[in-house]
């Protein structure tokens, strides 16, 4: 009984403590919210204001996955290529307009024998990182390594037009006949048949020369894969160290033949996802960001402060719906055309603003002979689509649905957009989502997939790299066809076979223009879009712009240091309330 008054006396105190705690918590929360750090709205750092290129500093960039190798003879993915571009140099290279220019060669090769022979003269003063001067013998030795059966490089098919290369690759010959070293500085290549794309092959990282003595010593000591871990090349940067899966570090090569002010060091971070990379970039911890996360991309596009330091450039790729020309209903050119006219590509541009451009033909915009005014170009035109369906004998649409193979969520979303479009002309689409592995295996076999989401990225900037490989009847095989729409057209084959060896550039492009028109008209692919890549760099990073072939090209970058941290408030005043 005595306890009752005690609790009654206590109750108001407890209640008051609770209230006080609540108020204190609310105040604390308010303070935290008021003082909470905010994401930077503009660049955190600006340059020192130097106008002329300066040497020095460390340049840091990142990629979302692993660098697989630093051995150029195996570099067949974008990251390995990007790393090899710093370490090595080839006979030929591309400028920022995508034109071929000499690299280690003193000038573009002299052609003879109707485009079947190429003679290269090397520059003076080109050196490997170990200090030895590069000779024609090194170029020859490196190509032999690339083509050998023992190495098994994926680069072989690009060089098999060299006389005797297939025999050497099979281990039936000791040397490749068609590679002839004339003297220390001169080398000649002889091909089985005239082929202009051989020069493009020579500009690929596969043909970058390695130092023989270094490779032989390493391979003996540590095995065949050792070259990729301790590379010695002739590029503007030397290899410093590689923490696998974390980062590769490079140092400036002082004896490079084209001296230029460059950063002292370069760090290439691996396995940094686009979200992490984007945030680090906005923090000022990364010097350049490539393909930022979607949120950051939209932010960068909208930001006034970042406007001078970003670029959006179309990548040399095309995406499309591949239509199987051997299977009904797409064995009928009218049905294929109907699909090509029925797709409203502007929906994609609205779904991913700044990410895509509607595609009208196989060749991406930067690659001649792309023609924006191509008479047979594909595009949205519902009336023509319906007309083509009438011509095909399906005025009321198809009876059976068509199966479209897609590889993952992103493509499902895009495909769903077009389901409605195709329904409008009476084609029902059923989506079949498969793993990437299954997709590759099954779509490469004839008469399996009726239609598939598909695409291509150039190996080298030449129209043949889109047309020969994807639509020539030679590219159809019982397994692993490159021609996944199984399109056969003797007329197109003939044009392509004439174009490849053609020496005269204008005549060659005219032939490819014909082929381009045929492909748009016959629609083995209903072209969807060309992707756009976004780059952004810090204000103190100079000399960078997206390269049409190499994309991540950091050879010409210099840093305007010391960088200076600026207050975010300057951007607020700029944009106003």
């Amino acid at each position, binding site marked *: 009984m005595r306890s009752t008054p005690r609790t009654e006396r206590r109750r108001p105190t407890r209640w008051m403590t609770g209230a006080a705690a609540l108020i204190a918590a609310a105040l604390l929360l308010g303070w935290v919210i008021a003082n*909470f*750090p*905010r*994401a930077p709205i503009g660049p955190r750092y600006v340059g020192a204001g130097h106008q002329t290129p300066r040497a020095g500093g460390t340049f840091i960039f990142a990629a979302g*996955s*692993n660098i*697989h*190798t630093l*051995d150029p003879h*195996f570099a*067949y*993915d974008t990251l390995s290529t990007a790393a090899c571009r710093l370490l090595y140099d080839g006979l030929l290279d591309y400028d920022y307009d995508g034109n071929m220019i000499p690299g280690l060669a003193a000038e573009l090769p002299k052609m003879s024998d109707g485009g079947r022979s190429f003679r290269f003269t090397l520059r003076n003063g080109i050196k490997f990182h170990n200090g030895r001067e590069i000779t024609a013998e090194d170029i020859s030795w490196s190509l032999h390594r690339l083509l050998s059966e023992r190495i*098994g490089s*994926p680069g*072989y*098919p690009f060089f*098999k037009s060299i006389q005797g290369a297939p025999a050497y690759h099979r281990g039936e010959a000791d040397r490749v006949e068609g590679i002839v070293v004339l003297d220390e500085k001169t080398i000649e290549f002889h091909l089985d048949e005239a082929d202009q794309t051989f020069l493009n092959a020579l500009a690929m990282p596969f043909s970058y020369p390695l130092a023989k003595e270094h490779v032989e010593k390493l391979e003996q000591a540590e*095995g*065949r*894969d050792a070259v*990729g*871990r301790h590379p010695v090349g002739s590029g503007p940067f030397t290899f410093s160290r590689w*923490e*696998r*899966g*974390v*980062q590769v570090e490079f140092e400036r090569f002082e004896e490079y033949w084209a001296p230029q002010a460059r950063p002292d060091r370069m760090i290439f*971070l*691996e*396995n*940094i*996802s686009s*979200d*992490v990379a984007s*945030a*680090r970039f*906005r*923090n000022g*911890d990364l010097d350049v960001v490539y393909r930022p996360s979607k949120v950051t991309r939209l932010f960068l596009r909208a930001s006034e402060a970042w406007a001078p330091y970003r670029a959006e450039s179309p990548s040399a790729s095309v995406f499309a719906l591949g239509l199987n020309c051997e299977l009904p209903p797409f064995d009928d050119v009218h049905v294929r055309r109907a699909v090509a006219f029925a797709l409203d590509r502007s929906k994609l541009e609205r779904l991913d603003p700044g990410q895509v451009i509607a595609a009208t033909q196989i060749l991406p915009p930067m690659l001649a002979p792309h023609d924006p005014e191509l008479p047979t170009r594909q595009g949205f035109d519902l009336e023509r689509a319906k007309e083509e369906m009438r011509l095909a004998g399906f005025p009321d649409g198809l009876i059976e649905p068509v199966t479209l193979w897609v590889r993952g969520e992103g493509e499902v979303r895009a495909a769903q957009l077009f389901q409605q479009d195709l329904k409008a002309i009476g084609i029902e689409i059923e989506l079949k989502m498969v*793993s*990437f*592995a*299954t997709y*590759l*295996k099954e779509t*490469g076999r004839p008469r399996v997939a009726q239609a598939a989401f598909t*695409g*291509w*990225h150039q*190996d080298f900037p030449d129209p043949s790299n889109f047309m020969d*490989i994807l639509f020539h009847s030679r*590219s159809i*095989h019982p*397994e*692993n*066809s*490159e021609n996944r729409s199984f399109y056969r057209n003797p007329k197109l084959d003939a044009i392509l076979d004439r174009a490849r060896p053609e020496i005269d550039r204008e005549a060659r492009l005219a032939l490819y223009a014909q082929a381009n028109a045929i492909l748009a008209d016959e629609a083995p692919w209903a072209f969807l879009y060309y992707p756009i890549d976004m780059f952004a760099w810090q204000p103190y990073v100079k000399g960078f712009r997206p390269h049409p072939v190499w994309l991540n090209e950091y050879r010409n970058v210099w840093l305007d240091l010391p960088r200076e941290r600026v207050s975010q408030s300057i951007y607020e005043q700029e944009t106003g309330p």
Partner: protein
Amino acid sequence: MIRFILLRAMWGVLVIMSVVTVVFFLIFVAGDPAVTVLGPQARAEQIADFKAKKGLDQPVPAQFLSYLGVMPCVRKDSPKYERDDGSRGFCGILQGDLGESYSHHESVAAVIGHRLPRTLLLASLAVLFELIIGLSAGVIAALRRNRWSDTLIMFATFVGISLPTYVTGPISLLLFAFLLGWFPFGGYGVDPLDHLYHALLPSLILAVAGAATYARVMRGELIETLRHDHVRTAKAKGMPMSRVVIKHAIRNALLPIVTLIGLSLPFLVGGAIITEKIFAWPGLGLLTIESIESLDAPVIMAVVLMFGVAVQMGNLLADIAVAALDPRIRLED
């Protein structure tokens, strides 16, 4: 005891063998490794070359037996393919050869060798945090049972168990790394101290669920133990409460925790897949994702093998440790 361990080890090997067999054949059901590794740009010729080099043109059972090491090597690019006398060598797991990665241009042993220490660092830090945070929270909650601190801790553990790392990870990155700048924004760092600094946030996130579980188990066990006679006796003898708890109660309450740690070892390695992805931690988890995406068969097999061994070892160690701690338990078959 020794009999028990041997028998368990035998069962373990059997289980691992069946897992390896199933996964090996599953890889070939999923797709064609050569096609997938070389990607959509590959030429038929490149694919054929690659298959010949790696022995992928052989029948799958032959490849499997060669992988086990009971049939001569089918991988032409292996240094063991041909012996000096011209006969075919063996290059399977029985010979301790895990093969060469399809995409990394390195032996699988080297690839794993780079990645394993990083995952172990993350996992051991996570276990450490789990124990420190989980056990102390559990003890506090048990001693202050039904008071506000207990309620708060139990609420926190409830939240901790419920929140998956793919929620807590990005939020913590946004808050502590991006906005506050206390921790590095993902990655691995360059020197040992830097690695540790980079590991703090991901290991804390990895530890959240485990710490919450341990706190709950510890609280329950401790409350139970504190009711036991020997504890009451100790208290009656006038022993200070702190010593009673530390000496008599906690030790008894630890038993189920030890079992839990043992069982969670493989989970920490496996559970790190998501955390490693979020924090760009280049360990085994990231490697697993990549190798599955690219059907890098030798790496997938090696990772499966390792996880299998980790699960078996974890279970066995837990059993042994419990037996060692608790004299009432005897290990028998």
